[in-house]
């Protein structure tokens, strides 16, 4: 529920109703992640298959390889599974 997820019970909007439209961007779902995708930039061929498959649009396009937007990546691992050159590995989050 966007940035209201940080508010205390006295100030949170009534009924969990979001008064600001388009505020989903403020909800950083990255902290749901249990496994973190790590891109090996040397192996990446920039084919963008991971970019197509990512259900959260959390793959960032760079000039020669891809990167991950960790604010929104939920760690599903689809990118690592689909990568044809095995350039993405999933590492356990240590929090």
């Amino acid at each position, binding site marked *: *529920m966007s940035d*209201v*997820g*940080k*508010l*205390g*019970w*006295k100030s*949170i909007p*009534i*009924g*969990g*109703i*979001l*008064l600001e*439209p388009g*505020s989903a961007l403020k909800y950083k779902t990255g902290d749901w992640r249990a496994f973190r995708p790590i891109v090996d930039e040397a192996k990446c061929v920039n084919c963008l298959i991971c970019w197509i498959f990512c259900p959260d649009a959390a793959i960032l396009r760079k000039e020669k390889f891809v990167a991950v937007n960790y604010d929104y990546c939920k760690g599903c691992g689809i990118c690592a599974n689909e990568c044809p050159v095995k350039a993405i590995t999933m590492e356990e989050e240590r929090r």
Partner: protein
Amino acid sequence: MSKIIGMTGDEAIAYAAKQSKVDVVAAYPITPQTIMVEAFSEYVFNGEVDTEFVCVESEHSAMSACIGASLTGARVFTATSSQGLALMHEMLYIASGLRCPIVMGVANRALSAPINIHGDHSDMMGSRDCGWIQIYAENAQEAYDWVIQAFKIAEDHDVLLPATVNIDGFILSHSLEGVQVQEDEDISSFLSTRKPAITIDPDKPITVGALCLTDSYFEVKRQQVEALNNSFKVISEVNEEYKDLTHMGYTTVETYGMKDAEAAVICLGSTAGTAKAVAKKLRNEGKMVGVIKPWVYRPFPTKEILEAVGNLKALAVLDRACSFGAPYAALCSDVFSALYADGKALKVFNGVFGLGGRDITPFDIESVFNEALESAETGFVKEPVKFIGVRN
């Protein structure tokens, strides 16, 4: 100027909803509530009200439509009973969770199986934790008065919670009584048009029903608890204002003979009327008995009940519903919690009665009073939970 009209409990509630100028009614008929929506649909047909009457295919849909309408800022009324209330169950939590000040008339009726259409409190007690304000009326007059007050309480911005006004099925829903009603203009000045805190407006979009996970759900619920706590103050203010208008004095708890009572009965709804009549007779015989009748069951008026209990020696809690497997039925559990937390050590026992509409007679209640008086004297409870009026 007020006038007296002969009405059933159901009709009195419909009449109160009419005078409250509700914008939307979405309801599905079920015995013994049917007359409420039947009477209201006649007001709509006759053009006596400017209300959108939505005929739906079930109670689940009725409450869903009410929630949608309430979120637009409309004043919303509905009514149900028994299986209908049970079918609404999930939507009851959504109405309170989304802070929709809907007012609902409930003609209390037993739950199946076996099927039964008569009055007991199993339906509302099954949904007692749904976050709604829950009021129990003793007669048609109280039902009329509370419905009007319920809108004002529910719609207050410090509350914003839905409310039920409960009447015993058939005993009140279908019995004709003289009801003192107020002038339409007086009710309109007491209860002005609803001023919503948040409305659905295409020019100012909001999100209703967004996912609230581990990071926010708890805060939203904690706030809801506070809203129900806040309602005590609002109920008291609204009661005062209503009294100024109508000379009808309401509070969260009504007491009879409690100043000097040694033993008392506490119960909800129409049974309190019989209990008061029996208490009056016993007091004339020199027996110090009293009656406590919570008008408001949720939020539970702990403070007022403790005040009423005072130095009482024994209390019989009469429940018109079962809590299967629980040590005591619903009202009794709440009473025990309140008394224990306050350190009160009086003798308490639970009487479960009237399931499926079985009558509780003055004779039954007199036995309860006598047993409570005996407990007061001996300091001993013979039977912690008794079932009154069931055949052996």
